[in-house]
């Protein structure tokens, strides 16, 4: 990697790995098409889809739902076996967390936490697939770009956190009434005299929830993916010495980030359901 060519090559390699497969509206021609370069993708602006992010997360989410649905249909109250044990232990784990942090009454919170946790775990786990396998397979099929870890795409994490944000606002208004929710924003923590300051403080507080949720997950996974890509630049015979320890450490991050996301979702839901401040 000493030569200038080598540096450029590795820079391109990294950029290539960080580029989503983008399908969008070409701003010049107005035609919907696949972007053939990062610049083209950028030009498409908001009117574009990351097919890889959507596709991988859809496949993973569907896998999760199918597996759990099958187990749910075959549930017996007798001695559980095999996969049912596994599913039950997850459900119990989620249920315990929800019971511990969520004090309101809402049958949606536990399934929401389950979906959040499993889906994020699965999406994060894509990080442990060696970085070149899937893009290489895709290139054989003629797909130019493929970023396999949905959670390294801020669109994915923001999509989820905006969903949570909508739920926070919906349940705040539903549980506290529009007036109660507005009062919370306007008259806390310093009373009526400091109204603008209160609004600013509580507003930041409110907005920070989805932003921090999304950025925390995205940042962790993006950094992890980045390090895998950097390790992949090394000669193949030495890669294992770094990628193996990092992968083992990354298993922790995969689960931890999913767990943090889920826990915060539960806590935010709890705050939205609390009537007294």
């Amino acid at each position, binding site marked *: 990697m000493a030569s200038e060519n080598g540096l450029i090559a590795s820079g391109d390699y990294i950029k290539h790995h960080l580029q989503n497969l983008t399908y969008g509206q070409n701003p010049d021609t107005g035609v919907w098409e696949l972007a053939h370069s990062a610049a083209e*993708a950028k030009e498409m602006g908001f009117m574009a889809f990351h097919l890889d992010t959507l596709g991988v997360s859809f496949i993973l989410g569907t896998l999760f739902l199918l597996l759990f649905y099958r187990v749910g249909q075959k549930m017996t109250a007798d001695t559980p076996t095999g996969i049912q044990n596994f599913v039950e232990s997850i459900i119990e784990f989620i249920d315990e967390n929800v019971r511990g942090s969520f004090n309101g009454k809402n*049958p949606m919170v536990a*399934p929401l936490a389950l979906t959040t946790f499993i889906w994020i775990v699965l999406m994060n786990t894509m990080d442990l697939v060696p970085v070149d396998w899937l893009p290489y397979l895709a290139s054989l099929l003629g797909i130019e770009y493929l970023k396999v870890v949905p959670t390294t795409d801020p669109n994915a994490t923001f999509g989820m956190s905006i969903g949570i944000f909508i739920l926070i606002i919906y349940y705040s208004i539903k549980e506290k009434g529009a007036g109660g929710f507005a009062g919370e924003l306007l008259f806390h923590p310093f009373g009526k005299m400091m109204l603008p300051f209160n609004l600013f403080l509580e507003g930041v507080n409110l907005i920070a929830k989805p932003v921090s949720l999304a950025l925390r997950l995205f940042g962790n996974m993006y950094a992890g993916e980045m390090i895998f890509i950097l390790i992949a630049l090394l000669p193949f015979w030495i890669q294992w010495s770094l990628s193996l320890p990092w992968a083992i450490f990354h298993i922790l991050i995969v689960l931890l980030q999913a767990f943090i996301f889920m826990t915060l979702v539960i806590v935010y839901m709890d705050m939205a359901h609390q009537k007294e401040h």
Partner: protein
Amino acid sequence: MNINLTMIGQLIMFAMFTWFCMKFIWPPIVAAMDERKKRIESGLIAAERGLSEHKEAQQKAQEMLNQSKDQAAEIIANAGRQASTMVEDAKDVASQEAGRIKTHAQAEIEQEANRARNELKDQVSDLVMQGVNSVLAKEVDAKVHKDMLGKLSQTL
């Protein structure tokens, strides 16, 4: 890393997955787990009840055993007492009977003796009469003497 419609797509997907999970996955699994919990609970309660019932039954059996033992002892004691009284009674009856038989026999013997004595007296007087008759036939007026002897025998 551009923010675009992917975000909306992901949001919709998230909502759909959560809805599906809430509708079709969470309820049956949790219901089955709850049912198992209930079954185990009731099983434990039943086991405990069975245990206490068993203990109670054992106690009752022991009590009954003790009671019957007492009863048996009582019955045996009663029987012993009754047997001894019966033996006493039998002894009494027997001795009474013996006494009665004895007195009866004595009376009979006495009667018999009396009868024999009377008979003997008659025979002796007859014999005496015959002897006296034959001795005194010639000399003494029979009629006078007979009266005299009759008087004599009456005083005897």
